[in-house]
């Protein structure tokens, strides 16, 4: 079976600082792949490259059997079937929750207002947010905002979801509600690429874990192997520190 998302030989440098070097990674349909590694290791940049928010310098990314990093690919078309959620939520503060969610379906996908609203309400209902539809984002807790951001990304019916450290900006007590949403998506078979610092969560949800260090994938494999019996000294050191910090 061809992977849903296939990244090969991707390189990215900002000026002369190399952020990603020769990245090879693939995500099969219905799989969840977790990217772990310290801040600055390139996890976020890789996700932004996949969403075409950051152009790559070399290599290729194939999504659903089609190369999306070619010259005449329309990034807006690619993004029509890809959802991304950011660390800082990035909700639109001047719009109510419902309008945040229906904006892309209406303006990009040509869905009628009624239909978009109906679908948004059913998604909000599923994640216990139905009563927040008419609120502005600044009236919501961080966890609620991030769940709304996930709903906003889901509203376009994406084939793959990208999560960029979506719990890093949250108070500890609000992390679980967001992770549970992602777990639920996993159980429904959503294809996902997830950058995270939550190792316990990665262990549960990931089909494969990928350790990035200084822009290079040092090792990847099943979560038990990478998190339980890492081969690379750098991976061991990283996990050791996570354990010391009490986060695993």
């Amino acid at each position, binding site marked *: 079976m061809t992977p849903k998302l296939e990244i090969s030989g991707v390189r990215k440098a900002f000026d002369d600082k190399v952020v990603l070097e020769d990245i090879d990674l693939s995500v099969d349909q219905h799989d969840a792949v977790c990217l772990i590694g310290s801040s600055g290791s390139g996890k976020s940049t890789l996700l932004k490259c996949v969403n075409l*928010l950051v152009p790559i310098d070399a290599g290729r990314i194939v999504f659903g059997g089609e190369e999306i990093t070619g010259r005449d690919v329309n*990034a807006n078309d690619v*993004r029509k079937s890809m959802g991304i959620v*950011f660390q800082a939520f990035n909700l*639109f503060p001047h719009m109510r929750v419902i309008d945040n969610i229906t*904006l892309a379906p209406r303006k*990009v996908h040509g869905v009628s207002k009624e239909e978009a609203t109906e679908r948004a309400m059913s998604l909000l209902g599923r994640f216990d947010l139905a009563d927040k539809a008419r609120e502005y984002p600044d009236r919501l807790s961080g966890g609620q905002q991030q769940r709304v951001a996930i709903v906003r990304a889901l509203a376009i019916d994406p084939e793959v979801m990208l999560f960029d450290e979506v719990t890093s900006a949250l108070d500890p007590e609000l992390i679980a509600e967001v992770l549970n949403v992602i777990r639920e998506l996993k159980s429904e078979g959503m294809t996902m690429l997830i950058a995270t610092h939550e190792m316990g969560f990665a262990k549960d949800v990931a089909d494969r874990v990928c350790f990035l260090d200084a822009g290079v994938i040092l090792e990847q494999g099943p979560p038990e192997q990478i998190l339980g019996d890492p081969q690379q000294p750098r991976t061991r050191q990283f996990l050791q520190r996570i354990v010391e910090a009490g986060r695993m």
Partner: protein
Amino acid sequence: MSRPLDDVAGRGPGVLGPRPTRRRAREEGARGALIAFASTVLFFGLAVWAILSSPAWPKVQQQFFNPENFAEVFPDVLRGFWLDVRMFLIAEVIILAFSLMVAMIRALRGPAFLPLRILAVGYIDLIRGVPTLLLILILGFGVPALQLRGVPNSPIFWGLAALIISYSAYTAEVYRAGIESVHESQRMSARSLGLTQVQALRFVMVPQAIRNVIPALLNGFVSLQKDVALVYVLGVREGVREAQIYTAKTFNYTSYVVAAVLFLAVSVPVARFTDWYTERDRRRKQAVSV
């Protein structure tokens, strides 16, 4: 070391005595208001008295504040001023829309939009470098002199066109500052949802940008509301022109004061409103960020 601070705050415990009760605070507030009132009355009373009792005052009053001249010229200046107001309203609406378009073009990214960006930047730089008055003279006298077929000859038309062209360049920069004040992550997340550049600007960046620059836009209102009078150089009989005609006939300057009073009657409320709005906006932002 807490002593001076407590003193300033006026409710420090301990050192300087008991914390004031609410009643005492109220009494102090009332006393403050009384002092402010008394000092204000005293200050301006003295100032007015000094002016009125000066030996030059009768002459000044005769020249600038003559009630008879005031009554005589008021209807003419008011009629002219009404033209100013209408010109202002028309120009402002067009400026707000046109300059927003220029600012949006300037905010577009990517090599494909380079020619449009050059056009926008060139327009802004060029026009901001030329005195508004000069632009009014060039368009107001120059274009009608060409006697082109189908091109209007009205000085009001060309005067307004010059004002719109000039003010739009400044206003476009105000909008641009607003667009740049919206965090880049907003643009990024809009694009990640599949919105085009123009859609991201229109639905996400610009609505937030406008909120951020409303005080600056209102400031522009006040400025334009006065600058419409510049079209008098084209012979348009607006308020200032009417006042000047009267002065030329009578050698009395009360008509200018009439015009000034009319302009003030509009611009002072707008300026107060701007302050009030800015303050309210600032408080709201603080409330959110806490």
